[in-house]
């Protein structure tokens, strides 16, 4: 059974070794409009992210992975199957 996308995002966050607060700051820096609480709700799957919001979160994580020497492992909204937390 497919795992909800949102918990995948939170797994990426843990893999990237970011606290919720640090991810929120990075997300905010890229123009994200949700509060830290809302961001956590999205990561936990309690709140659906718009495709745009998903991309901002994904990119904040991907920039972190690039810092760690990785590529861009977190898929963006137009890369399929990531548009909401169904």
């Amino acid at each position, binding site marked *: 059974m497919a795992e909800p996308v949102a918990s995948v995002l939170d797994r990426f966050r843990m893999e990237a070794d970011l606290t919720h607060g640090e991810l929120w*700051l990075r997300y905010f*820096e890229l*123009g994200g409009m949700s509060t830290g609480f809302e961001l956590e709700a999205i990561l936990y799957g309690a709140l659906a992210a718009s495709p745009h919001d998903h991309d901002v979160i994904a*990119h904040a994580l991907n920039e972190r992975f*690039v810092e760690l020497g990785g590529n861009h492992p977190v898929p963006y909204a137009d890369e399929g199957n990531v548009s909401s937390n169904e």
Partner: protein
Amino acid sequence: MLDIEISQFDDEVVVRLFGEVASGTAAKFEAALQSLLERGHRSLILDLAQLEFINGAGLQMIIDCAGRCGIMGGSLTVRSPSLKLRRLLAIAGAGSLIRVEHSEAVAARLGPEQPPGQPGFSHRSTKGAPTPSEQFPMGLPADRRLVDSALRLVVTLATATVGGADGVSVSLRRHGVLSTVAASDDTISEMDADQYATGEGPCVDASIQGRWFHAEALSSETRWPDFTPRARGLGINAILSSPLVAQNKPVGALNIYSRSEGAFAPDDQELASVFAHQASNILTSACAGASSAEVAVRFASALRGREIVAQAQGVLMERFRLDEATAFSTLLRSSVWTDETMRQLAEGIVRSTVSVRAAGAPLLGGDSHG
């Protein structure tokens, strides 16, 4: 136009600004500061005697730079700022982050310097409010001056950023008593004080109940019969109070006041909650013993980055007639292709608005990555 003159005396570097720090010149100012910091200079004097104008981004750069100087064990001194800039810096925590030096003529007019923590114009706004040396909320052993200056920074940023905001304050409950820790001006302090005095109002309710209170139009407001006429008497017609939470308990409120009814659009309400959340983070980290100055500096940097990304988006929208979402995804894709962060790319684009006219430089990609 902006001219920057840099001179060095022993360990101190004096940066003189001539002209304007505005959207076309802010990048030049930032680059100059950046290069000094990268070369290890940590005691800077910014001489603003010949500065004609500085925008919000420029102000943010000064605060950001002061934070970085402080972290490196140095300091930033601002020399001969205008009255307006002095006020803004005072609210933002000039007392602890930035030293202000007046020209001789101004110093003579001002008389003796204000005591630390009570910078500049705030002599009246602190009437009846606690001084920074009083207790921290819940009597916690944090560095109160840093916390207060970080909260003042939040007030400055919220005033500058939230649409419709004519004034902003932070109220904190200390040993059961609500008081104003930071306010953008005297009217706002008075507005808070009226709520403490009547024991009612959105600020009081948000502080106690830990949830939002939005008075869209005071002319039809019925929840606070004693306070509402006083607020209207001071020219205020809309209020948005967001709760501040430390260690999961409501401890105060971030209050945004407007002279216009219905001033706060949904986006502004979201932004207000973002600022309230950030102020809560500062309080929580202060409770947990983390460095609230670091949190404040990191937040200032994130806010600056956000502004640069937004500016770059604006440039792309104008140049290529894109909508906002397409401009963002263009930036995002470029960032993925080039491995540059979105902020680095955005900085390049904003810089190019100056250089593209002069040299025909490419809009995207700047000077790196093929």
